[in-house]
Structure formats: structure tokens, C-alpha cells
């Protein structure tokens, strides 16, 4: 469903990605791991159109989307949970969710009621400003907001970052329901064991290059160590 071919990306003179080849099949969960600065977030920013690329570097359902703007990429059924949540401060919780459904695709699984069923606390806090919530609740809003468009591909950037373990567990507990709705999930994650526990396949990035691509069930600790730090295990 999604494919990157020799994807490169730069910030001015600084080159951040060097020819990334990656695929995501429909309904699949793919984890992207790597140290800080490996290029994980840049990869997602490129896929979503926040960073523009050559058109053929990213294909969605076979169509070149590398040069599309973010709003047009999202209209194709790709949704993003950005790093740091980035809720809209002037919108309430419910308005944050509704704005995620602004480009709703057809009559899919997700609606306000379904989001509230997935994260019941949000129903209680629906009239509060989004930014008045705890970090974990804000993450729930960010995930719900992305789901409201009924995406076929959900990109999640560091959804466990800065959250307490018990909150991370609650957030990850929602993933099976999200996958059951039919959405493929790409998880950018630094918590390797957490990512491996839910992913079908894993890509490891280091300094803008893919250093490991494997099925999550087949991957070894040594292989991760080598890919993560670029040295022999």
C-alpha cells in the first residue's frame, strides 16, 4: 500500500535520509526504530508531505505522492499522530477530534462515539481545552484525532515519549482495536521492546539509512544491537 524508493531528504545543506527503501502492506503494523537523529521523524515528515520529495520516491497504492502537500497526502487516507501530540490549544478536546474528521473518508469505523469508546476518559473531558489534559490524555486525543479521518494508514511518531509506563500501556492497549478497524500502522518508537511486541515487521534506521529490515518475530537482540549502533554484536 505504501512504498518508499530510494527516499532522500534534507534540511538545507544537511542531508537526513540516504535512499530509504520501505514497504507497508495493508493492515500491517511496521515499527521503525533507531537512536535519536537516525531520521525516523524525517521519514514520517517526508511520507506526510511536510517535507517535499521527488514524486516517485513515495508511492501510495501505486501513485506517486512524494511531491504532494501534506493536506493532499492526508486526503488519500493517511493520518499522522505527530511527535509531541501538537493539539490545537484554542480547540476543545471534542473540537480537536472533530477537526481530525474534516477530511473523513467514507463511512468507516471511526466516529466520535467510537473514539470515546476507545478512550472513555475523553468523553468526560470533551469540553476541556485539549492542552489542559495530562500528557497521556493528550496522546489519546492525538490518536483519536488521527483516527477520525478513518485512515487506511496511521503514522505514529513517538507515542510513548515522555509518558509514564502505566499510561504507555493504556495507549498500546488501544492498538489491537485500531488494527482491527483495518488500518495499517507505522510506529516510530524508541522503546524497542514495546515496538517489537506489537509490530509485524521492523526497520532500524541509523544516520538516515536502513540498517535492519526483518520480521519482528525473527529478529534477535544481537541483530538489533548491531543495527542500532552500527557495530558487530
Amino acid at each position: 500500500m505504501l512504498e518508499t524508493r530510494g527516499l532522500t531528504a534534507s534540511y538545507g545543506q544537511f542531508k537526513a535520509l540516504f535512499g530509504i527503501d520501505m514497504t507497508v502492506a495493508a493492515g500491517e503494523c511496521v515499527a521503525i526504530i533507531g537512536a535519536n537523529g537516525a531520521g525516523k521523524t524525517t521519514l514520517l515528515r517526508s511520507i506526510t508531505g511536510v517535507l517535499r520529495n521527488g514524486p516517485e520516491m513515495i508511492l501510495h497504492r501505486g501513485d506517486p505522492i512524494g511531491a504532494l502537500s501534506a493536506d493532499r497526502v492526508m486526503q488519500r487516507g493517511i493520518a499522522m499522530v505527530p511527535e509531541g501530540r501538537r493539539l490545537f490549544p484554542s480547540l476543545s478536546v471534542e473540537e480537536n477530534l472533530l477537526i481530525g474528521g474534516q477530511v473523513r473518508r467514507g463511512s468507516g469505523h471511526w466516529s466520535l462515539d467510537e473514539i470515546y469508546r476507545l478512550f472513555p476518559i475523553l468523553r468526560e473531558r470533551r469540553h476541556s481545552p485539549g492542552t489542559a489534559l495530562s500528557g497521556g490524555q493528550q496522546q489519546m486525543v492525538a490518536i483519536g484525532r488521527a483516527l477520525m479521518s478513518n485512515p487506511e494508514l496511521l503514522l505514529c511518531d513517538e507515542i510513548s515519549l515522555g509518558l509514564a509506563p502505566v499510561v504507555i500501556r493504556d495507549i498500546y492497549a488501544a492498538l489491537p482495536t485500531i488494527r482491527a478497524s483495518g488500518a495499517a500502522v507505522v510506529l516510530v518508537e524508541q522503546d524497542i521492546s514495546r515496538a517489537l511486541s506489537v509490530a509485524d515487521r521492523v526497520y532500524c534506521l541509523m544516520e538516515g539509512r536502513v540498517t535492519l529490515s526483518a520480521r519482528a518475530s525473527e529478529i534477535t537482540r544481537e541483530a538489533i544491537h548491531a543495527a542500532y549502533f552500527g557495530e558487530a554484536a
Partner: protein
Amino acid sequence: MIWLDTVVQGVLLGGLYALFAAGLSLVFGIMRLVNLAHGDLIVASAFLILIVVETLGLNPFLAALVAAPALFALGWALQRFVLNRVLGKDILPPLLVTFGLSVALQNGMLELFSADSQRIAAGPLESASIDLGIVTVGTMPLLTFASAVLVIFLLNRLFYSTALGRAFRATSDDAVTASLMGINPKSVFAIATGLAMVIVTIAALYLGMRANFDPSVGPARLIYAFEAVIIGGLGSLWGTLIGGAIIGVAQTVGAQLNPEWQILAGHLAFLVVLILRPRGLFPRAVD
């Protein structure tokens, strides 16, 4: 009694200033763009309404209805093809472009309409008044103030009760994240400027019916609009109405004390608020 009448006249005058300011406030609130050509766009719109009145023989209110879609389109195109290209982290390019637009508009209007003063004839409405018992108010100022209240009420409804309003607020908060919601910030900005031009049309209608205007009066309208927006608090629409009323009351009270003090009193009121509440009375925008 004369002071009560002065204050009431001032509040009603504030309605006109609020109309001048509402479009400016809308554009600034959504895209942090200070449009230095705003006053000239009001004057240009007044000329357009005048042309429609004179060529089609329409009532000024109907003429404004005819002009509004054209001016919405003008605002949309201005934003889409000119201002969007210069919006960014640096605030100087849009300031320079709108300043240039202001100069071009003034000179264009001078060329087309000459420096002669014009007025949109409103017939008996110009001198009609309503006796409220303790004070008598002109129908036109009352209508202007009621229009300002209605415009700001409708803008608030749009902002807080519609999907477009949510998109306005989200884009104002964070344009990049808004684009990740499938919103095209440039389209949102273009719609906002189009909407601002519809408000400009209403302001131009009342400006043209209440006073003489010529191609050079735009910058003074811009200053009143700025003052109303800043007194009310950046991004606050109801604050803009109150800001307009404060300038209006200051001007009528100043004029009551000494006719030469009218304009100065309005500016002094602005300075006093700026000293006491630099972020205005009801600040919303946080930058």
C-alpha cells in the same frame, strides 16, 4: 444630559470603527498578517458601491450586496496569489507588500476617481433619527452600530460553531499540524481574506453613506481600525467592538470639550490603554 448624549453618540460612532477593525482583526487573528492596505481597501470598496449605485440605480444596501461577492473574490485572489507568497516567519515581507498595495490603491483611485470628495446618497435615512426618550439618536449611526454587533456576533458563531471556524482556529494555532488534518492553510487564509473583504464592504457602505470620502482617507481609517483592534486585544472580536466604542466615546467627549480635540482625544485614549494594558483589554492571541 448633554454628556449622556455625547457618550451615546460616541458608542454609536464606535460601531463604525469596529466595522473598520473587524476585518483587520480577523486577518490578523488567523494568519498574523498586518494588512497596511486595509483602509485603502475600505475606500476602494466604497467607490465600487458608489459605482454600482450610480450605474444600476440601486439602493446603497442592495449595491453593497452586489459588490460583496466581487470583493470576496478580490480578497480571495489577493491572498491566494499575492499575500500567501510572502507569509512566513519574517513579518517584514507582508508589511512591505501591503504597504506597496496601499500606495498603488491610493494612486489608482486618484487616477480613476480624481481627488474630489464623494458620498453615497442614502436619501431620507441620512437625516432620520429616533427619539429614545432621554436621548435622540440618528438612524444611520444606530444602524451602523447594530450592523457592527451583528457582524461580530456572526463572526463569533462562524468561529466557534462551524467546521470552517474550527479550521480557522486550528490553522491560526499551528498551520503545519492543521495541514496534517487535511486542511490546506493557504486556502483557509484565502477564505479568511475573502471574508474580511465582505466585512470591508459593510464598513465601506457605512463610511460612504455617513461621510465624504476620497482616495486619500484610507490610512486614517486604518489607524482607527488598528487602535480598536489593539485596545480590544489582538484576536478578540468582541474586544474589537469595545475598542471601537472606546475610541468613539473618547472622540465625542473630546469634541464636546473642544471641537479641535476630537481626533486627538481618540488617539490619547488609545495611548492610555496601551500604557495600562499593552496587550489590550481582552487579549486572545498569544505570540
